[in-house]
């Protein structure tokens, strides 16, 4: 157990993501910027509730989190949040359609077994889906594969092959292709590296991508 807790901690601290003036992760600040005041938010894989608390404090959202690790749920409840202790793969179907304004999958989707189902369900219960992912095609990862012949271990992917919680390896480019094929519109995107926001060549230079999505047929 101690080992798996340690790796989970790494993923929830957002290793390798640059931080803002008050220590907030830049991807979190982008999400806070996107989410509208007073909206209803479901954070799948909310961890200790850092992002959700930020959204409650700064945007007055009505937030609910889902988290599988019991210890993290205690922390999130300690922040005054409402949290469901369980798997993100279960329970989305219980919500009526359009129940939330936003569903957030922050550093979670690469760990979900039923990727397509989770995203479809998320877009059913919410108007917008916000996904943030570690970029498997970052130049550092590419160099490690190319020159060392090793599975990459980077700031955004800080795991050995045998202890990673990530069951999907995905690049920013992969995600664009996936969205197009599944009739999902990417409304906004934000890319971030160790030093801050990444503007050009995100698939090479960014360690993380954050995407705001909605159904292509939603107006």
């Amino acid at each position, binding site marked *: 157990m101690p080992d798996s807790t340690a790796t989970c901690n790494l993923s929830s601290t957002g290793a390798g993501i640059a931080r803002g003036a008050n220590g907030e992760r830049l991807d979190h600040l982008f999400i806070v910027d996107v989410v509208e005041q007073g909206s209803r938010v479901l954070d799948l894989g909310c961890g200790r509730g850092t992002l959700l608390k930020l959204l409650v404090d700064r945007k007055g959202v009505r937030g609910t989190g889902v988290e599988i690790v019991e210890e993290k749920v*205690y922390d999130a*409840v300690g922040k*005054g949040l409402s949290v*469901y202790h369980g798997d993100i793969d279960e329970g989305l179907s219980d*919500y009526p359609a359009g129940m939330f304004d936003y569903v957030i999958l922050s550093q979670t989707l690469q760990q979900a077994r039923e990727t397509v189902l989770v995203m479809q369900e998320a877009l059913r219960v919410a108007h917008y889906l916000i996904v943030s992912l570690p970029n498997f095609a970052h130049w550092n990862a590419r160099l490690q594969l190319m020159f060392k012949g090793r599975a990459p271990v980077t700031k955004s992917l800080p795991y050995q092959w045998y202890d990673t919680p990530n069951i999907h390896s995905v690049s920013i480019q992969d995600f664009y292709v996936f969205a197009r094929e599944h009739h999902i519109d990417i409304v906004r995107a934000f890319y971030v590296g160790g030093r801050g926001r990444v503007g050009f060549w995100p698939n090479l230079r960014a360690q993380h991508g954050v995407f705001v999505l909605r159904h292509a047929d939603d107006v």
Partner: protein
Amino acid sequence: MRSAGGCAVNSIVVSDYYIEGQSFDGSVGVVETQYAEFSELPLDSGLMLSPLTIAYEIHGALNDNGSNAILILHALSGDAHVAGYHEGDIRPGWWDAMVGPGKAFDTNQYFIICSNVIGGCKGSSGPSSLHPSGDRPYGLRFPVVTLPDMVRAQKLLLDRLGIERLLAVCGGSMGGMQALQWVVAYPEMVGSCIPIACTHRHSPMQIAFNEVGRQAIMRDPSWKGGDYYGGASPDAGLTVARMIGHVTYLSDESMREKFGRRLRDKEVLGYDFASIDFEVESYLKHQGEVFIRRFDANSYLYITKALDYFDLRNGLGTLVEALSDVPVDTRFLVIAFSSDWLYPAYQSKEIVRALKGNGLDCTYLDIHSSFGHDSFLVETTQQTHLIKNFLSVTARRLGVKSAG
């Protein structure tokens, strides 16, 4: 540690339903049970209970606008004595670790009410109460009561106390079921609900265990159709009922940890039936013996019957529909325990699913514990953290000020 009855255990002191060594921060001190009298109560069966006494205890102070009241509801064998000490007692109330100054239900902030259910034997009207004709106790002449009837009686009490709205209703096991019944019966009165280790309806397995307990009592020759008051009580039957109950409150893991296959006061097997061989046998025997000193066999029949009848839907269609009148700002904290096989976590999840289906704010925890159904009485650290935070958010949202 060795309790009065001589049963070796670790953290649970098994001489009763009470737990020692869990208390922290302070106690509400010496408390006294109070009694409220009412002329009548209409029951689900169509009968009328008249007159009616409700035993209750209160802790803390009601604030100026009466908005800091919390109703705590007890389980099958519990009573109104939730916290503190009765004059001369060495053992505190059944949830003393959770109720008191600085505790989960902080009596410096909240006004706590706990009453004995009707049908019980701890001061509220029940089968051992004197029949209105004055001849002898009711026995089976006492009308069958349901969990909604118990809740209706609690509503009478709150009306009497001048409490129009509850900050929270909370209970474990049967208490959790009553808490759920509260939000369905009086949705506008309840700010938040904390059902712990419970279900929205008794399952066939739960009914089955209760029926074994009832049969043990009713097949005891001393039961005499329930009319045993003044003579020998059906102690043997009630003992067996309690033993069965206790098995369902523990878990395979907790029994292995607590007893193993250890022998009781002997080095080798006895090869007889007169003496006790195993520690676990001694524990159950002791539990049964202690129980008959403080509980009435007929009350055991009535309360288990009320549990078995319980179905929150009560002809209202699906569970989602049954909860559809609950105001959207009502908050829920639903707690289950991983080793509770009597009220398994799936039953709590069914409640959560129906709450989600109504868009209600809900926190759900499946607390890892080896203590089985008893966990709700034992695992006070985690519950304190959860309930304390949950209540403070609820109080803040409702603009509740503590009594000052």
